[in-house]
């Protein structure tokens, strides 16, 4: 086709897209989200209560909203999309690892514009890690905190509602940049998905070209990595803005009845998490900028004749270890909040749970070099980091202890959120204990960079953090949608997720013992263990991953279907009042239901199946 033909086509496409935008914006009965039982018939929801009386209908509502609840939902939807991307990436990787040689990714590489199966695998690995940590993990927690913290502390909204919206809207471009390598690779030969892995260690991350080899003087650096670094920077700025907002909100927007002694456990963890973000993310930002300068402007921050590659590792892990606690503290808060409700009692040792949260927050800045034991840093430094790393297990154990004691003296209702809470505790113990072993220098020498490490942190990240997220999603689903999910599907989701997680990640721990190194697409050339044994475990891990996939598809279906058609709930869907464990957000919910009714909701709807 000649040039003018293409121009005409492009113009037609533009007109078409413009039409779509107009349609979306105009569509009068675009399904407007109504946060509670009333209406839902396409009229602007009855945003009574406070603050946001009028909202435009349709898509503009979501583009312009500064309401913390809407922004919470936006974070949630965004995070779930990212979860899907990261999940699909890892499913391809697990399929590749069924056999020792290279096959699945090799078959896909050509179509995706990547030079080899190995390179595609490395790109997927990088994308999976970064996506799950920065585009799923942090945002899904922000979904909970945005929706709930203002309700829990009786604030009108966040301290800076517009900054809140800006912080969210930096994330979509961030994701596009981070994934850009995949989008561009099929069209531009010198660009590939970044293969730097989530740690982005130089010199490799500075020199790698699109074809994967180190740069010769003429080879072109892979712009996919530059785009990813820029996107990552954007998400870091977003997280920092959010953190400042939460700190300001919790300090200055609490209602008259919410003194520091009345602050709930979830808000405590969000406050601590925000402080960690504030102190660690700027450092990541700086390290990323230095990396970009090294790549593009011939600076020498991390080259051997400059600061050296170890400098990068120090900077990265000074951020990186607090980051794991940034991800785990709010889930611990969710568990501390939800678990007692279904044990019919108050959390045991509330004060100590708060203190241990603060202790973890402080200590988490003193352990970063346990990721660098095998780099040849000074042995005295190593020993001190080992000591602090063992010490940080204590506050985590205190929390675990309090959860178990809470259950011990409680009467337990095994609802889906409660099952996820119990699963959290079980998996967190395994994740924590495997971590303590790694924190001991001699053990780490054996297991560093093997699948054992992968097993360790996935027990925490998938087995605990994601479990807490699911506990929270199920527990607050009625609060957000005014409806109940399908219980049978939810139980199926739990059991598939529990079995899948333990199968996958325990196989990885065993593989680590057998010496299987992490981050490889193939294992036909390794010399550590018998290949057929390693293959058996890879197959088990892959089976587990597919079980997980099935579970998550069921979950998505359940969420969408129940949001649209689930039975409406009454003001106390969990019967919390029976045990005297009701809390502020459900009071708010009850209040909203009542206002909705007097405002002309449909009462027969609201208590039909309550």
């Amino acid at each position, binding site marked *: 086709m000649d040039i003018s033909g293409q121009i005409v086509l492009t113009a037609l496409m533009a007109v078409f897209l413009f039409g779509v935008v107009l349609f979306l914006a105009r569509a009068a009965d675009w399904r407007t989200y109504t946060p509670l039982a009333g209406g839902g018939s396409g009229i602007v929801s009855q945003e009574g209560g406070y603050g946001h009386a009028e909202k435009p209908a349709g898509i503009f509502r979501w583009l312009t909203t500064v309401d913390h609840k809407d922004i919470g939902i936006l974070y949630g939807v965004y995070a779930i999309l990212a979860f899907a991307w990261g999940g699909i990436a890892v499913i391809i990787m697990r399929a590749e690892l069924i056999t020792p040689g290279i096959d699945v990714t090799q078959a896909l590489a050509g179509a995706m514009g990547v030079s080899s199966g190995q390179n595609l695998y490395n790109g997927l690995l990088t994308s999976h890690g970064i996506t799950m940590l920065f585009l799923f993990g942090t945002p899904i927690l922000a979904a909970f905190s945005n929706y709930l913290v203002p309700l829990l502390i009786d604030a009108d909204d966040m301290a800076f509602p517009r900054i809140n919206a800006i912080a969210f809207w930096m994330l979509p471009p961030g994701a596009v940049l981070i994934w850009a390598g995949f989008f561009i690779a099929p069209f531009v030969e010198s660009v590939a998905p970044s293969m730097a892995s989530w740690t982005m260690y130089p010199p490799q991350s500075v020199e790698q070209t699109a074809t994967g080899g180190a740069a010769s003087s003429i080879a072109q650096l892979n712009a996919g990595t530059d785009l990813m670094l820029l996107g990552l920077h954007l998400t870091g700025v977003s997280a920092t803005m959010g953190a400042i907002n939460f700190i300001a909100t919790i300090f200055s927007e609490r209602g008259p009845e919410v003194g520091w002694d009345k602050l709930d456990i979830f808000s405590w963890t969000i406050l601590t998490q925000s402080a960690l973000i504030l102190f660690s993310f700027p450092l990541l930002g700086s390290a990323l900028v230095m990396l970009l300068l090294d790549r593009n402007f011939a600076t020498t921050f991390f080259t051997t004749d400059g600061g050296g590659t170890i400098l990068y590792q120090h900077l990265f892990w000074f951020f990186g270890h607090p980051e794991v606690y940034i991800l785990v503290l709010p889930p611990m808060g969710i568990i501390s909040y939800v678990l007692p409700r279904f044990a019919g*009692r108050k959390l045991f040792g509330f004060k100590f749970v708060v203190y241990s949260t603060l202790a973890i927050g402080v200590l988490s800045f003193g352990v970063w070099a346990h990721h660098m034991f095998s780099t040849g840093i000074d042995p005295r430094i190593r020993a001190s980091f080992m000591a602090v790393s063992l010490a940080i297990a204590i506050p985590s154990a205190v929390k675990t202890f309090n959860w178990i004691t809470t259950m011990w*003296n409680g009467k337990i209702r095994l*609802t889906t959120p409660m099952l996820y809470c119990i699963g959290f505790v*079980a998996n967190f113990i395994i994740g924590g204990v495997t971590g303590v072993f790694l924190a001991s220098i001699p053990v780490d020498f054996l297991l560093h960079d093997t699948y054992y490490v992968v097993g360790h942190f996935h027990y925490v990240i998938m087995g605990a953090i994601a479990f807490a997220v699911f506990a929270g999603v199920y527990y607050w689903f009625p609060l957000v949608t005014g409806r109940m999910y399908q219980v049978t599907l939810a139980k199926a989701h739990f059991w598939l997720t529990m079995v899948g997680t333990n199968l996958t990640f325990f196989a990885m721990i065993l593989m680590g013992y057998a010496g299987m190194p992490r981050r490889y697409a193939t294992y036909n050339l390794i010399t550590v*263990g018998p290949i057929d044994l390693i293959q058996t475990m890879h197959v088990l891990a892959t089976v587990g991953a597919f079980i997980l996939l099935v579970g998550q598809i069921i979950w998505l279906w359940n969420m969408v279907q129940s949001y649209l058609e689930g039975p409406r709930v009454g003001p106390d869907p*969990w019967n919390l009042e029976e045990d005297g464990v009701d809390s502020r957000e459900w009071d708010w919910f009850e209040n909203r239901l009542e206002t909705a009714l007097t405002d002309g909701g449909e009462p027969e709807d609201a208590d039909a*199946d309550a």
Partner: protein
Amino acid sequence: MTETVSDRFRGRRIVVGIYLAVVALAGVFGAAVGVLLPVESGRDIQEASIAGLEFAVTPLNFAVYGVVMVGVGLGVLLLAVRFVSRFDDDAVDGN
């Protein structure tokens, strides 16, 4: 359908149930490690010793090892929970 499960389980039964499940699982995992270690080339570990006690690396021995280690370790924790829970003012279990 709402999920207002009305069956209530006594907390300690659930906790003890989980304890037993975990200890049993530790046995399975121990057996897996017992299969793994001897066949791992390069290291070829046939014997292990703890505190001077020597034993052959077999699935059964390692299963026992896993059960004892985890059983005792978590058992101590459980006893501690039992002890501390006497000072729990919000207990609802009734005994």
